[in-house]
């Protein structure tokens, strides 16, 4: 698909995507130390990440996830900082791992409203079904008493 995008447009698309997703990245050694970092780190509560620092100290949400041992993964809609959600892309390469954060805050907020209403309706429906069962049981009890 990407091969069909004219060259002149692909650069523009790249800028649109970067602007919308506000990427931040960290390259991590197998020992969990920062090799390099950049992008909008502060947005995700990461701030300064000096080379050689332990990534889990700065990003506790990575506890248990690194090293990737060759298995890449994507974790969607992870709260990385108060009010900020990101898609966390964990990319395994031979000598190191990449952590790529892409902003998903707007998507999460839009979904929250829909999911909230959907679940509330389900709870109301289940509550009504339970009430119907209780009433039917009561009717049976009254019939039995005749």
């Amino acid at each position, binding site marked *: 698909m990407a091969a069909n995008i004219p060259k002149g447009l692909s650069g523009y698309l790249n800028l649109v995507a970067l602007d919308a997703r506000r990427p931040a990245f960290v390259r991590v050694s197998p020992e969990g130390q920062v090799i390099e970092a950049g992008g909008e780190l502060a947005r995700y509560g990461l701030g300064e990440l000096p080379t050689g620092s332990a990534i889990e100290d700065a990003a506790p949400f990575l*506890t*248990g996830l690194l090293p990737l041992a060759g298995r890449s993964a*994507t974790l969607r809609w992870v709260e990385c900082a108060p009010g900020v959600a990101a898609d966390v892309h964990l990319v395994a390469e031979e000598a190191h791992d990449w952590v790529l954060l892409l902003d998903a805050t707007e998507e999460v907020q839009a979904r929250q409203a829909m*999911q909230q209403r959907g679940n509330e309706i389900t*709870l109301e429906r289940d509550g009504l079904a339970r009430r119907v069962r209780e009433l039917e049981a009561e009717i049976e009890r009254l019939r039995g008493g005749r």
Partner: protein
Amino acid sequence: MISKKVCMLGAFAVGKTALVGRFISSIFEDKYITTVGVNIKKKQIAVAGQEVTLMIWDLAGEDEFQGVQLAHMRGAAGFLLVIDGTRRSTLETALKLQERATKEIGAMPFVVIVNKTDLLPQWEINDADLADLAARGWTVLKGSAKSGAGVPEAFEALATRAIGAA
């Protein structure tokens, strides 16, 4: 300092977020607000003579529209399987989630907490159900995010298992 990732797993509206809120901050919010994706909270506790930092991944619950994203459980040392005592369907969901998690992520320690003991008269889960879970060798606790009953015990039981001390 040991740090362990643990997850909250269960159907929607069983009280996963409320249990985390009670455990982390001793607060309870009565209003139901659905979780999208995953929220992460941190708490340090003493378990088996060690200080352990729990990174608690509060996963969005299983509902009719979307299944739990089990990929979020990657790297976890254990999970709290939450059931709402007033809704029988959440027991069935919990059983399915436990099976799926074991199949997709692998076996790991977990503790069951049946939430909402503050609403005991409305419970659809009975003693036979709890006995059935216990007969599987599962650790089954009862609690209430609202009153706080059983909540520290559940997280301590999970942490003990997560560090391999159980």
